[in-house]
């Protein structure tokens, strides 16, 4: 399990407008590219980490835009919501309609939720 890396993906995509569009339009290609090229970049120094990789379940959830699975894998709720609003809110006519659908699709969950600790 690599919750940290899932969170790092959500975080680094969310803060780059071009990557938000790229992930929206080509989720599997973006996940593969990011894992190969970006996953092991330490964010503020010009050195690389050598060991970070997604599990198959994480790769599949990210590649499928499957926010329910990502929630269940323990992705950080704030990062998950923020990026998915950026990608999909625009497809809904009513304000907050995407956010409410997001909630409804998690409706089978009650506390305690999956652990987001990294």
């Amino acid at each position: 399990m690599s919750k940290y890396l899932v969170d790092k993906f959500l975080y680094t995509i969310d803060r780059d407008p071009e990557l938000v569009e790229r992930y929206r339009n080509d989720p599997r290609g973006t996940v593969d590219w990011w894992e190969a090229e970006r996953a092991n970049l330490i964010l503020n120094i010009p050195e690389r980490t050598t060991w970070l990789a997604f599990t198959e379940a994480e790769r599949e959830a990210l590649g499928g835009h499957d926010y329910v699975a990502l929630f269940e894998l323990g992705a950080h709720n704030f990062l998950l919501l923020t990026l998915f609003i950026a990608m999909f809110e625009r497809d809904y006519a009513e304000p907050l309609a995407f956010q409410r659908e997001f909630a409804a699709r998690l409706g089978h969950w009650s506390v305690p939720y999956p652990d987001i600790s990294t």
Partner: protein
Amino acid sequence: MATIAAVIASTHHPFYLRASTAAGEDRPPFADEWVAKIEAFRETLTRARPDVLVMVGSDHFHQLWLDNMPQFLIGKAPFYDANYYNEEREFGLPRMGLRGDEELSAYLLRGGIDAGFDLAFSNELRVDHSITCPIITLRPQADLPIVPVYTNIFAPPMPQPKRFVELGQAIRALVEAWPSDKRVAIIGTGHLSLELGGPRQFGPHGPDPEFDRKAVEWIAAADLKSALAEVSLDSLWLPGNATHGFMDFMLMMGVAGENVRADYADSLDLFHTMEAYFTWYPEGSS
């Protein structure tokens, strides 16, 4: 010695700017009442005539990241750029800039560390909506220097609620002992029950109105005994998965002083979360 002109605790709602400036059919039905409450709350700071603002908030995974996460951090810089691309995108928040009071930052860092808080610091900090929301609501002219104090209410493992209270008490004591003739307002924002990225998000009220009712009373009375008896790092997951922001209210209860009732208290039941506004005047109500 410095004067504590006001102690202010508030929720921060990034949608306020957009709601309050929307017109015509884009203007939400609750906007007028919200604006009236914010303008009344703003007056509680204005009349305190502050010279400098100590601002307690939390980075929302903007500059601070999981590869290097401080629990408590104080900014020490002459200037703070503010707000981020994703806040512009989601909330319509503008890019802002705030002057810093480096002397007070240095003093709080030195004094806080010597008091037993191993505070992190930043000399180049871009603050986010946890700082700019209260600027927009309480001091929209953004003309006063600030000292940002960041807490980790976001990424486990977090400090215990008691530690937030103790830091608030330490900040209060340090500011009171600051050899300066300035009037300091200490402003902190947090959350009541809040759910983000979970099944209870964006409902007609906050996810746990019963928690909110109790929390508002704890804050208004600075009832630290009750709050500390009922609130733990584990229990805060129950009212909503982003409710650890309540610990910033607990910090501010520490600043206000145990069992000191707020001179001003107001709240507003909005969709998604309850808003709450509190002001104390340590010098006495003016």
